[in-house]
């Protein structure tokens, strides 16, 4: 089982590396716009993976991961804007900053469980845009205006377009991060994380340092989401406080729930999914207006909200988990 799924993953990764090179052959199918879209999906899956490490594998809820995404994005943006740090160097910097911020937020979170942690992180998500606009930070963050950046340039004179290069950059970061996460979850630390999720008291009694694991997991989770934020700052070449509102955190939650709580592959599916819905919202709205004749501007969030509730009812393991179960059933029936 493990080796076949490993082959699948390897195959998909190789495919992901090769396909964009075919751009000159199929210029219509592999356009710059599509590559950019896939890049944002990659970024989204990293962010969802961050949330999944915390909620799915460690059992701590967060409705405020948009905050860490914002910290990552702003760290990257300020470094590029103020100190002209190259974009690739902002990724580890954002990871470190977000790890520290996440670790610090994890300390009070130790005392909270269930609804209360959700409440505290929800409050964090609501307050983020305001914190980013704080007057003392204005010199760095540009206040309401945000910061305009340059898109990453193609290095070494490689014959790639900007979007192609961005895609490869995001893909490499994603592969490294998922590989690291898979290894971590397969190790002693990963088992400790999941033991804390499943049976807190038993884990504590077994000698697992629950406080340390919970705070460090918070830090790592924040670092992952922060890296996604830093990548998005490079990709979009712009950061502004009001884009990091509560709905960003809700999108991560959508990714988590759709992909499946506690599933690595699920994080990818979740990330792809929310970007897709977000991007097709316009088309969806048109469809509802023109084809169904309803006088509404259907937004992506209606779809998100309905899906959140529907999935909790129908596929508690997420779409990935649900399909996997269905597949097993079909194979079992044969």
């Amino acid at each position: 089982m493990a080796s076949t799924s490993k082959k699948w993953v390897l195959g998909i990764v190789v495919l992901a590396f090769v396909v964009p090179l075919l751009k000159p052959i199929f210029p219509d199918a592999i356009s710059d716009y599509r590559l950019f879209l896939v890049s944002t999906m990659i970024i989204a899956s990293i962010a969802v993976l961050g949330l999944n490490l915390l909620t799915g594998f460690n059992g701590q809820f967060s409705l405020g991961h948009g905050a860490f995404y914002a910290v990552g994005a702003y760290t990257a943006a300020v470094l590029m804007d103020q100190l002209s740090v190259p974009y690739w160097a902002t990724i580890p910097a954002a990871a470190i900053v977000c790890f520290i911020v996440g670790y610090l937020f994890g300390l009070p979170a130790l005392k909270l469980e269930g609804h209360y942690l959700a409440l505290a992180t929800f409050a964090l998500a609501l307050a983020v845009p305001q914190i980013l606009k704080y007057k003392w930070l204005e010199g760095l963050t540009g206040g309401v205006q945000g910061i305009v950046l340059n898109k990453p340039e193609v290095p070494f004179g490689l014959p790639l377009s900007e979007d192609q290069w961005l895609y490869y950059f995001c893909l490499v970061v994603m592969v490294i991060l998922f590989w690291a996460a898979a290894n971590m979850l397969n190790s002693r630390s990963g088992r400790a994380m999941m033991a804390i999720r499943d049976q807190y008291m038993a884990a504590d009694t077994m000698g697992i340092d629950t406080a340390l694991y919970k705070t460090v997991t918070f830090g790592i989770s924040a670092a992952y989401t922060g890296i996604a934020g830093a990548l998005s700052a490079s990709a979009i070449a712009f950061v502004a406080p009001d884009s990091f509102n509560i709905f960003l955190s809700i999108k991560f939650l959508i990714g988590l729930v759709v992909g499946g709580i506690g599933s690595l592959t699920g994080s990818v599916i979740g990330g792809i999914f929310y970007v897709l819905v977000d991007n097709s919202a316009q088309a969806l709205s048109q469809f509802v207006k023109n084809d169904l004749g309803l006088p509404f501007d259907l937004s992506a969030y209606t779809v998100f909200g309905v899906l959140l509730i529907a999935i909790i009812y129908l596929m508690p393991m997420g779409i990935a988990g649900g399909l996997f179960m269905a597949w097993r059933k079909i194979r079992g029936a044969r």
Partner: protein
Amino acid sequence: MEQFLQQIASGLANGAIYACVALALVMIYVSTDHINFAQGEMAMFSTYLSWQLMTWGLSFWAAFIVAVALSFVMGVVIERLILRPLHNAPVLSIIVVFIGLLAIFNSVAGAIWSYLIKEFPSPFPKSSFGIAGVIGPHQLGVVVVTLVVLGLLFVFFRYTPLGLAMRAAAQNPQMARLVGVRVDWMLALGWGLASSIGAVAGIMVAHIVYLDPNMMAGILLYAFASALVGGISNPAGAVAGGFIVGVLENMVAYAGNQIEKATGIYIIGNGEKLTVALIIVIFVLTVKPAGLFGRVVVKRV
């Protein structure tokens, strides 16, 4: 000095709104142990309903009553249809459903009524209401209306058989069921009442913050802070917490203003209101989770 009094008075007016929303949150929390993250958006939706009714020609108070009644129905329906089947679901599922409701209400309101900010009328006469220089007519009106609502609720829960049944269902569902209280309908009624109270808060505050789909986000956060300060399991505490937090909010902004005037250093002002609420929430949760008037919950292992 006069400015100081003004700040306290407007703090009390805001506090009345927070108290209402906090009370709605507490009502749901006490009976089901759920924190309703969609409470603010539900109140916003009710406010839009009343606005719609007014544009169709109803007077303010007629629209008010119809909207509050519709909100009651909305609350009951949501409880029966969406939350009832998840009775024993894990906490995460419940939270996800609430977030789903939040997203639905927000986007549907935006779809129907657009995201453009609308003005909302005040029903209180400008001339004969309020105390000049201290509290404006609308602010005083808000305080009066919320106090009336709170008084009605108190009478309802304290002196009517239905109120008693609802309290029984919240406190000890099994025993209540044994003596013939229909516990699940009491929960639905609780949701309806919470939704109505939220509607009152929304309609009262819309004149101050203007009507738009995101109008309740900040208020919800302050309501959370109020409920926590007062103790999230205590309705009276939540009301007290609302007033405390309302005044505190204005005092912090006022103090920040004075410091800036005196020293020229900007520390805190109106722009940091949500941050202040965040700090209150995290502070109370970590330092005194039971709040000022709440019960300390001891968990048996």
